[in-house]
């Protein structure tokens, strides 16, 4: 099937043999990484279709909502109305709160009738969120625009150097996908084990982490709920774990958080004697 150029980003997470590591980092346990953490003090931005602030699953945790508006093609950031056009952003936020109930959520809406997922709007929303110093950004969407490659590359670097963790869902379709396949971001695909805290480190990038993304119960539009599958729903699990770690260890860099996640991952360990 490889000749068909399938993305197959989730493939490694269904074959544990491919994930075997031989270097357990003994000092780093889950208890050390996030034991007792609720995500308190961390802001998590959801760059998506908006957040339904009144949704029961969001528990009143949305502290700010903005949207990108295009005026003559130029993006500007404006206050948003606290709604979610599709339910997708709310779904992601609900997953994050399920792991890290005390984070503060910021909605950055880059999808909409007038935006139609334009890469420029997405980039503008991302830039705004980085400038605000929001600690963790969940990007369960990506741009297909080759023209914006360098823009997103620059933004990914700026986030990395400012200790902003970009948690990105790898796209399930075979196409360019920015910034989700850049090396500095937390690139996430789905595994099918129904455990929100089960995480895998993939030693064969571009996708580096696997989290639950198959038949996930999610919050949806108008106070509703449904069950969904996709890398979109794997990324917020990792965003939640990143928030837990960053809340417990202030000042930790994205590089260090990645290392901690890899250290506590559920990968099988090969014990080498002698």
């Amino acid at each position, binding site marked *: 099937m490889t000749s*068909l150029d*399938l*993305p*197959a980003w*989730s493939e490694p997470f269904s074959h544990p043999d491919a994930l075997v590591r031989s270097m357990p980092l003994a000092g780093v346990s889950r208890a050390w990484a996030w034991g007792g953490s609720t995500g308190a003090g961390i802001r998590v931005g959801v760059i*998506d*279709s908006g957040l339904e602030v009144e949704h029961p699953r969001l528990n009143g945790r949305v502290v700010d909502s903005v949207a990108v508006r295009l005026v003559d093609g130029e993006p500007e950031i404006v206050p948003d109305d606290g709604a979610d*056009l*599709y*339910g*997708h952003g709310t779904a992601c936020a609900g997953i994050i709160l399920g792991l890290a109930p005390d984070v503060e959520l910021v909605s950055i809406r880059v*999808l*909409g*009738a007038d*935006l*139609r*997922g334009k890469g420029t709007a997405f980039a503008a929303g991302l830039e705004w969120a980085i400038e605000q110093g929001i600690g963790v950004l969940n990007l*369960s*969407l*990506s*741009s*297909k*625009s*080759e023209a914006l490659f360098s823009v997103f590359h620059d933004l990914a670097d700026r986030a990395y150097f400012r200790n902003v963790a970009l948690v990105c*869902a790898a*796209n*399930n*379709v*075979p*196409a360019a996908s920015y910034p989700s396949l850049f090396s500095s971001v937390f690139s996430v695909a*789905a595994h*099918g084990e129904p455990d929100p805290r089960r995480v895998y480190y993939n030693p064969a990038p571009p996708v580096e982490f696997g989290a639950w*993304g*198959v*038949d996930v119960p999610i919050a*949806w*539009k*108008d*106070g*509703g*709920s*449904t*069950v*969904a*599958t*996709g890398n*979109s729903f794997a990324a917020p699990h990792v965003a939640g774990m990143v928030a837990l770690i960053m809340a417990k260890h202030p000042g930790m860099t994205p590089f260090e958080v990645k290392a901690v996640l890899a250290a506590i991952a559920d990968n099988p360990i090969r014990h080498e004697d002698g």
Partner: protein
Amino acid sequence: MVVEDDLTAALTALKAVARRSAVARNLQGGVEERLLQSIVDATASLFDAEAASIALFERDPDRLEFRVASGARGAGAIGLRVKPSEGIVGFVFSSGQALVLSDVTKDPRFDQEAAARTGYVPRSVAAVPLLDDEGTVGVLQVLDKRGSPSFSLRDMELLAIFARQATTAITATRVQRDTARLLGEVLRQLADDALTDAQVEALVSEATHDLDDRTEGPFWRLVDHAELLRGMGERETLLVAKILEVVANHEKRRPRRA
């Protein structure tokens, strides 16, 4: 004057290209629909699904229009229009992100209006974007996999392959549909800065101005007949071609009346 001559030569060449393109388009009427139909048929069959359909983005007003559908329960979707800012298809189109929802009836807003119009409410939906080089042109969706409550990740990734086929088909056929745009682009590239935009537009307009009247006039009647011939055997087609050749040669030899 050299420029004038160049423009005349360009116009002659353009007219030939435009005419051939229009003839090809006439001869291949419905090719896009047929290709898309074969893709949704194959998709529904491969996934053993109740229905599969393709919605394409159209402008003025912005909408996603279901162009083809397959499966016993899919037919009702054809012609349906949804806003890009609404529903699962709207999300997949706008975000370019593939999505599978199980138990969609739990979504209080799940295309209730659309479901009422098609008379069919699915339990599960898998939807992937149709991506070309410039962005998303539409959405391929599959409804209700038989014998399974939902679609798997693997289904989703396989579906993306079908989506790519669909996009290739659309791109190929739209090149013909957009003859004028294509001619304009080629002219601009060839001319570098030698032609102003107005000149390019004038040339393209002159080269293509009578192509829309293809149902009128004896030439287009001939094209229509040729389209019918495509359904016949090779012998009939060859015979007609020979007859036409004789007529054309006869016309060539005959001195033109004033």
